[in-house]
């Protein structure tokens, strides 16, 4: 259970020495201080378990997994139909096509999954009751996120894993490794947008606003961001900040996902004809994975900070 001493209370009785918190103006009172040791993982697991089983029971996980499987199969077998060929070609071309699909689909699904997490409970009125229980706000957010993340991860693995199994007779070990890498990066992409969704859910005052913010976030990162960067590049004719441009892509988790998949596959890199303009650091999966991790942890940390205020 919880250690002691991590909370401070404003306006202590006179017999107590003043704490740093009590010397501050009133809003400081009764707020928990940031301290990692105040986390009870059991409480997180209970909330996470409920969120996860809710999604299993209402068949959300099944539905999303089926959507992934259906799309991935169609892309694997009919992706080259425009070129007059039908049937599975190479894993690299398949992954390139899947990336184009997943980059729209997963952020949307993750945002829809998470936008309601906190604001929904607040609007329905169940949040107050939860917060009177022996659980901290931080544990509540982490529990919600973990449960939803588990549901999304499970769907992604089941959906794309099924396709991997179907394709496996035609794949060698390297191809399977690439496909597993694609699946892993798709999970990271989902977790990053889920983190953004939970953050929006904490900031939004009602569900309508939260859903608006979620749609806006999707438009910005998936549709607008690349256009903005491209526009800047064209307007400046590449004279200013040309070297910085590729790094700007790290400011968008969807682009990090694209870069992760596109520039770590030789064939695809050649296909896109971009091999030479990209800095070496951006083809390092570890660095890109680290950036993705930042996109998962960052918004979640902001959500916790805000929720504890």
């Amino acid at each position, binding site marked *: *259970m*919880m250690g*002691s*001493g*991590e*909370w401070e*209370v*404003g*306006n*202590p*009785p006179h017999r107590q020495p003043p704490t740093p918190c009590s010397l501050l103006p*009133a*809003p400081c*009172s*009764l*707020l*928990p201080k940031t301290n990692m040791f105040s986390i*009870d993982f*059991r*409480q997180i697991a*209970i*909330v996470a378990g*409920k969120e996860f089983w*809710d999604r299993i*029971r*209402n068949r959300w996980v099944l539905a999303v997994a089926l959507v992934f499987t259906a799309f991935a199969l169609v892309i694997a077998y009919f992706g080259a139909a425009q070129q007059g060929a039908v049937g599975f070609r190479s894993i690299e071309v398949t992954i390139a096509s899947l990336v184009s699909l997943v980059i729209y689909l997963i952020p949307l699904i993750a945002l829809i999954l998470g936008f309601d997490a906190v604001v929904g409970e607040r609007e*329905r*009125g*169940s949040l*107050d*009751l*939860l*917060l*009177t*229980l*022996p*659980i901290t706000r931080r544990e509540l957010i982490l529990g919600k996120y973990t449960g939803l993340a588990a549901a999304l991860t499970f769907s992604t693995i089941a959906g794309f894993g099924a396709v991997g199994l179907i394709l496996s007779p035609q794949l060698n070990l390297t191809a399977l490794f690439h496909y597993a890498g694609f699946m892993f990066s798709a999970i990271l992409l989902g977790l990053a947008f889920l983190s953004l969704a939970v953050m929006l859910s904490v900031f939004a005052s009602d569900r309508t606003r939260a859903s608006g913010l979620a749609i806006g976030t999707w438009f910005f990162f998936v549709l607008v961001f690349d256009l903005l960067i491209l526009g800047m590049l064209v307007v400046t004719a590449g004279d200013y900040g040309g070297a910085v441009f590729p790094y700007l892509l790290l400011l968008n988790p969807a682009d990090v996902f694209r870069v992760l998949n596109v520039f770590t596959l030789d064939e695809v890199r050649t296909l896109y004809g971009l091999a030479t303009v990209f800095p070496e650091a951006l083809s390092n999966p570890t660095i890109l994975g680290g950036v993705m991790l930042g996109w998962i942890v960052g918004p979640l940390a902001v959500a916790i900070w805000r929720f504890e205020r």
Partner: protein
Amino acid sequence: MASTIVEARGVTKDFGTVQAVKGVDLSIAPGELYGLIGHNGAGKSTLFKMMLGLIPITSGEIRIDGEPVNGPRFRETRRKIGYLPENVVLYDNLTGIETLFFFADLKAVPRRDCAALLDKVGLSHAAGRRVREYSKGMRQRLGFAQALLGTPRLLFLDEPTTGLDPGAIRDFYRILRELKGEGVTMVLTSHILAEIQERVDRLAIMEGGLIRATGTVQTLREAMNLPLTLEIAGGAGLAEQVGRVLEGIAIESIEEAGSVLHIRLPREAKMPALARLATLGDTMRDLRVREPSLEDVFFGYRNG
């Protein structure tokens, strides 16, 4: 054990420029059934939320069993508390028993205790049904069962009988009496003053962010010095005879409704008036002394 289980001292709460609670002192003894009454906007919900640690206090302090509710031992403190919110919202997709399991897990209460609690609130028959199929009264009962998880020493009940039918309200107060017998302290709010006036040990009247009065219903009545009413039933000529024997006694008003006389008089005139009325003999068939209701007391404080 502390001599008070809930202690509030100089508690204020500001929302921007509006001060919702303006310096409240309150102490509730263990085992008390304590009522908090006030009209909407009086500050009682805000005070309730501060006692539960849901919103920070602007100044002052609240202690639950000697500890700040969000203090270093906040998990222990919260395990002592049960809370039933007004119009409790639970999870529609869970069954009754699953709902209790979820809250039991979070309160670290064994799941085997849940079935008995459902039985206690009369929901055993609906344990396996989804909450979305529950009526408003059933949800309220389930919410109450949730509040009772872990045998809390202190219960906060916000408008607890909302949505309950008269039979369920009676059952509810029967359970509260049992809990009181076990030494549980209960703080409850209600709009239905007639419902709580005979049931609470003490109460506080809130108005404009302040506690205007605390005490038992009787001490509040006496402090307000509200007039009481004698209701006298009798035969023909009753009004004249009563008027005659009560001559010289300070009576506020006499109204005749059918064969019953309603006489309002100050509290101190009660005993002299009764002594004289006793001389009427058979003319008087029945006599009742009606004390001012909690509603009269409440409006007395609001308007006075």
